[in-house]
């Protein structure tokens, strides 16, 4: 090779090396090992619930009037007694508050409570996993009932004067007891003869409430329905459809909690896109109390209760707060009329 050839080879090599060096530096500078650019997946890979969240503002006819901390790490259930005292169960205890949210007392339990009901006479029924314990109004333990089945998991109790209804999510049944603890009959089991399709309970959420019309309302979350049973266990009617529209129940298993307003309307709470709404006794949507913008997205579900004045008391397990809602004009919580002295 001539000297000139050697030089030009070297120059060409130098140029190539230089260009490669620049490319290498740029590539290293652009490398993103820490996920700054996100997952770079297409839109079809995103789980989008944004479109499902908004609720027409004229449907929201309740406003949050107060909220207070439940003071529990894992609050699980809420109940209101005849005197409008608010009870919250969780952290192996029941705590109670005045109607304004001032702490008024607490009682420790032997186990983790799963649900709570306070009857008109002040008797508490507390579900402790598989069994029910009864406490007198002063908080002394009066009885502990034996579990109904091996898989019993109590998620709701409703106390009527002469009957105690227990929702057993594990056995997928509603159990009717007399107040003294004597088992009367199961309700809601699959029975082709009586045209009862049976309760489908995919997760430990099964709630019930005694309607003002004397029919027991039971959630059937796996079928996205609310069912009405007579005390004899006959399925009278059922309503509810699956869907993301606001008058339907969204997701795999909703509604998860029920309560009854003084005028007989039902308060139904959904998990997932946490929503609390009010339905007429026959199922038509009356209005919305609060939607996911307020209660968030969670799989926990907000337990609900109603006090004597028709206020809806919501246990927000994500915020660990009790939120109290009162009827308000649609579209907001602003009160409209006040004095007029200001210019």
């Amino acid at each position, binding site marked *: 090779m001539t000297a000139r050839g050697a030089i030009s080879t070297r120059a060409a090599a130098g140029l190539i090396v230089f260009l490669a060096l620049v490319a290498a530096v740029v590539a290293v500078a652009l490398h993103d090992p820490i996920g700054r650019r996100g997952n770079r997946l297409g839109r079809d*890979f995103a789980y989008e619930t944004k479109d499902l969240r908004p609720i027409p503002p004229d449907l929201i006819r309740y406003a949050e009037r107060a909220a207070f901390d439940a003071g529990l790490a894992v609050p699980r259930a809420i109940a209101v007694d005849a005197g409008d005292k608010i009870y919250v169960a969780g952290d192996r205890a029941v705590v109670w508050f005045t109607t304004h949210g001032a702490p008024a007392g607490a009682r420790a339990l032997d186990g983790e409570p799963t649900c709570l009901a306070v009857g008109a006479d002040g008797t508490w029924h507390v579900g402790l996993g598989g069994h029910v314990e009864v406490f007198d109004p002063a908080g002394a333990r009066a009885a502990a009932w034996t579990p109904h089945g091996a898989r019993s998991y109590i998620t709701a109790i409703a106390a009527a004067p002469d009957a105690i209804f227990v929702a057993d999510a594990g056995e997928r049944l509603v159990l009717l007891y007399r107040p003294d603890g004597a088992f009367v009959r199961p309700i809601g089991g699959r029975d082709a003869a009586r045209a009862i399709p049976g309760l489908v309970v995919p997760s430990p959420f099964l709630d019930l409430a005694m309607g003002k019309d004397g029919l027991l309302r039971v959630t059937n979350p*796996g*079928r996205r329905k609310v069912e009405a049973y007579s005390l004899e266990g006959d399925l009278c009617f059922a309503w509810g459809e699956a869907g*993301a529209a606001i008058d339907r129940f969204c997701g795999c298993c909703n509604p998860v909690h029920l309560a009854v307003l003084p005028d007989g309307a039902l308060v139904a709470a959904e998990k997932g896109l946490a929503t609390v709404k009010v339905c007429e006794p026959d199922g038509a949507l009356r209005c919305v109390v609060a939607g996911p913008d307020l209660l968030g997205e969670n799989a926990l579900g907000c337990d609900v209760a109603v006090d004597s004045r028709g206020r809806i008391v919501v246990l927000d397990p994500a915020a660990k707060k009790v939120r109290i809602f009162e009827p308000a004009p649609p579209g907001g919580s602003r009160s409209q009329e006040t004095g007029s002295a200001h210019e």
Partner: protein
Amino acid sequence: MSDHETTPIPRRGFMRAAARAACALGIGGGAAYLVAPRTPGERVWQIDPEKCIACGNCATYCVLRESAVKCVHSFAMCGYCELCTGFFNPSPNDLTTAAENVLCPTGAIVRRFVEDPYFEYTIDQNLCIGCGKCVKGCKMFGNGSLYLQVIHDRCLNCNQCSIAAACPSEAWVRVPAARPHLWKKVT
């Protein structure tokens, strides 16, 4: 250092030998010390399902073209829902397995009728790319029985997992190789 010629070679050689021996002892002993006193065994990477937020980085940050992370299904936690929010769109058009109703972009979830009203959902691991879309749907509305795990016959167990470096929620942990999964357990 031109004293080279006057210095007897053996002295330099001896010093070198001593230094070499010290070095060898240091390297070998150090490595042995680090390995020996605490031997909880080999460690492998795994995702803590409780911390995972199913952000989707697992699908794209793995050094493998097809990620070693895939969705797994804890059947004992599953509700066998007819309307599975891990299988169907949040608002499905119909409860059929047609493409317009199905959540999984790669069609990796298989739906099978068991008995009324129960349906079984299994993951076709050949199709799953670990994007976590179904995990979000199941966690949001359902029981959270679908979740992401490192599939260890695929994982190369890199020194530092490149997904772990890009994980936003510190869900990646090293676990004993003898128990390489963090199953959501039914107790």
